[in-house]
């Protein structure tokens, strides 16, 4: 395999030059990437899927993106505009981007501000269903005073103006290529959506939807020495376990994405000696959401799991606090995630400024939990081993998606809760149904026809304002929103809503962080959720692949131009 790669590299290069780290463009042959979810389109504006966004990020690029530390770095511009350098107006309503000179599209034409403005028009076209519309929320207009300047005007003061054209989910499309694909025509432009012309290090040779993408180095890439690889094979499909094996044990592939596997399984694969797992921590948290409303199946459809009927016991502080205290989080981390997990008591564990340190939960306290329930008068009055609250037994339906690690968590947590006198019934639902969002299915996580449910959630970028908005009362899924909405636990607290409104008006970073931490504590302490594990993203790369920097704040393939072959 390695020999073959080297030979291909040699063939692609001019002579039998040794494959050195910082060689000229295309000298390192071919790199093979495997994503166990296959990309189906290369236009992130028409798909919210991570697999599509990340595969497209090798071809089309944003003006600026986040690095592995979550800091903004200029990408197609000279510097990131701030209030300090005058790029962002003092009243926080405009941001001015200066495009670097000499950037060309892969077809040789010049990259100009007109392309950026076109991208805005493309996504905000009223007839087009743009998946990244939230990135352009609050944008009033995009102006282009000259070919290298883009001015984005917001409807009001925007403390975080880095939504449009920043990050892998908001790249720039070429105006000339997509001119006829506006609005309703967007999804019919198969040729454009499958072969977008970009500024990135690679160009598409052939795209087979839901299967494989072959790419080659972009001859017009701005850095003449990059990318080191002449060809890319981007394979999609399979399972996390199979792709991990392909990189770490058999060495068929160079990079495998998002390996959500138990730590002992990863460790076993690593013994194969062909690759190394890398972990990065973003704000992803595995949590148990507590239903604030009553999911009783005897309630009529349309009232079940809505604010009309509060939950019989989950709003009781002693109950949710005891449930949290009974959980041995370090053990969960050890069993489920290993190096890709940390104990978390927070809804927003990262970035560091927003991570609250007020709560602690890393020791299990079964006795304390029992005492707390006893003190609150929630005792087992009929001797069946299950406590009652106002005559209602603490009997819980606990659902999650089908995943080996999650089922292990369920079994453990059921055991701990049974020790403090809470009876649990487990259910697992196929992930495509659970996260499918189909308003007609009773099994989606939004409908929440269960007392508690476990899943992980995160946010993009480094500003959690929108994410913290998931605790707002009016964001609760309910029949008149077609069961859409992000406030899964139906958390409703006027103080929270008021404080969040204050956050949207605050510009000072330190103050924003303070409010953010307070919102986080409010949610957790009032029983909206039980955070369990701060999860990292775990990917694996071949030992012979250099330059990989795992980035959880942007596309994992953000620096693919720097990847190169090393002797390993």
């Amino acid at each position: 395999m390695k020999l073959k790669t080297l030979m291909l590299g040699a063939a692609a290069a001019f002579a039998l030059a040794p494959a050195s780290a910082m060689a000229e463009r295309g000298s390192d042959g071919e790199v093979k990437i495997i994503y166990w979810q296959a990309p189906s389109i290369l236009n992130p504006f028409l798909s919210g899927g991570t697999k599509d966004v990340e595969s497209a990020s090798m071809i089309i690029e944003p003006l600026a993106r986040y690095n592995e530390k979550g800091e903004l770095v200029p990408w197609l511009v000279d510097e990131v505009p701030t209030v300090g350098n005058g790029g962002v107006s003092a009243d926080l309503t405009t941001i001015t981007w200066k495009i670097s000179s000499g950037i060309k599209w892969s077809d040789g034409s010049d990259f100009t501000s007109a392309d950026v403005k076109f991208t805005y028009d493309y996504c905000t076209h009223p007839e087009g269903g743009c998946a990244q519309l939230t990135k352009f929320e609050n944008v009033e207009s995009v102006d282009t005073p000259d070919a290298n300047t883009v001015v984005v005007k917001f409807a009001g003061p925007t403390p975080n103006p880095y939504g449009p054209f920043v990050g892998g989910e908001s790249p720039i499309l070429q105006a000339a290529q997509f001119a006829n694909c506006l609005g309703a025509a967007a999804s019919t432009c198969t040729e454009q959506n499958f072969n977008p012309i970009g500024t990135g290090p690679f160009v598409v040779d052939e795209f087979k939807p839901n299967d494989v993408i072959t790419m080659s180095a972009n001859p017009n890439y701005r850095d003449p020495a990059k990318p080191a690889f002449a060809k890319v094979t981007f394979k999609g499909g399979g399972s996390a376990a199979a792709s991990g094996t392909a990189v770490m044990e058999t060495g068929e592939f160079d990079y495998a994405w998002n390996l959500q596997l138990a730590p002992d399984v990863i460790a076993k694969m690593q013994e194969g000696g062909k690759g190394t797992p890398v972990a990065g921590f973003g704000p992803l948290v595995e949590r148990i959401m507590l239903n604030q409303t009553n999911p009783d199946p005897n309630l009529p459809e349309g009232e079940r799991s809505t604010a009309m009927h509060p939950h019989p016991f989950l709003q009781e502080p002693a109950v949710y606090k005891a449930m949290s205290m009974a959980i041995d989080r370090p053990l969960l981390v050890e069993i489920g995630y290993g190096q890709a997990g940390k104990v978390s008591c927070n809804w927003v564990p990262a970035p560091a400024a927003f991570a609250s340190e007020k709560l602690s939960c890393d020791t299990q306290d079964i006795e304390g939990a029992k005492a707390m329930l006893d003190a609150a008068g929630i005792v087992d009055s009929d001797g069946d081993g299950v406590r009652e609250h106002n005559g209602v037994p603490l009997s819980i339906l606990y659902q999650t998606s089908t995943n080996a690690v999650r089922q292990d968590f369920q079994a453990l947590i059921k055991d701990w809760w049974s020790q403090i006198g809470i009876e649990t019934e487990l259910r697992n639902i196929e992930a495509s149904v659970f996260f499918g969002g189909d308003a007609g299915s009773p099994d989606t996580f939004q409908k929440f026809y269960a007392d508690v449910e476990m899943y992980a959630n995160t946010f993009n970028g480094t500003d959690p304002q929108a994410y913290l908005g998931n605790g707002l009362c009016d964001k609760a899924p309910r029949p008149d929103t077609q069961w859409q909405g992000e406030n899964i636990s139906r958390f409703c607290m006027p103080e929270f809503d008021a404080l969040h409104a204050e956050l949207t008006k605050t510009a000072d970073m330190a103050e924003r962080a303070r409010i953010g931490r307070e919102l986080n504590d409010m949610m957790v302490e009032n029983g909206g959720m039980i955070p369990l594990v701060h999860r990292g993203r775990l990917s694996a790369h071949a030992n012979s692949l250099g330059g990989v920097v795992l980035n959880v704040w942007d596309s994992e393939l953000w620096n693919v131009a720097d990847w190169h072959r090393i002797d390993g």
Partner: protein
Amino acid sequence: MTEPVASSPAPIEALKDIEPSKPPRSQWKDVWDQLRKHKGAVFGMGFLVFITLAVLIGPYIYTVDPQKLDIRNKDFRPIYTAIWDGDSKVGWNKPLGSDQLGRDNLAQLIAGGRASMAVGWAAMLLSLVIGTFIGVVAGYFKRLDGPLMRLTDLFLSLPILPLLLVAVTLFRQPLRANFGPEGGMFILIVTIIAITSWMPTARIVRGDVLAIKEREFVLAARSIGTTPGRIIGRHLLPNVLSPIMVSAALGLATAIITESALSFLGVGFPSDFPTWGKMLADAVVRMEEFPERVLLPGIAISLTVLSVNYLGDGLRDALDPRIRGR
């Protein structure tokens, strides 16, 4: 008939009936004798009895709770591993080792077998009843033949997995409310397996009934005014018993495999309720390190299904009077 008269003359020696020296043999005794000659069938029956008894009585002898977590004693190997690897983690308290959460493998195997066998037997019996009924009715009543056989074709084209997913969505809630999470799911799975597996039985039975009902003895029965119900019960059913028994044996095997496949896919029983298929599914990612976790339930499924197949094979030979005795 008539009372023997004491003064009747002595019968002529040559005309006297010779009393049968052996007691008469029943049909079932013949069947049993034939079955005993089939080594595979004897093995199959023996194993089936063994495994059925093991899962029925096992939990009273080996009283460990299969769902009990014992995280400090996780990842134990089976005791026999110590023979070639003295350093392995083994213990007499966990004869077949424990899984990644410290649940006892032997206890899980027994409990899992209980679920799998119960599903297998129940689904087999139900599909047998449906299949035989449809087959006999279609074969005997000409007017119903067409519609019933088209119905059979319709069911044959139903894919079981999507059907089960839909059924789970529709009926889980009411069944769970009435029979509990495990009972409700049991009923659902048994019903679905049964209604998607009765068709081969129905077709075979119909074919046999069609042939038998034209035979002289049926004609004779009809000519003396026997009702269709009696003809079916007295003359047809006993004669189609052998294909029914065979398809019963095969049906049991299919039902166990289908249940395992469903558990393997994570549809069905709650995740902490052990079945053989579930144990297999959980063990796949750690197959290299702990092969026994795949092998034990896998062997249990294979041997049960194999033994049932052999038993069915033997029964077919034994129940056919033309083969019997050869």
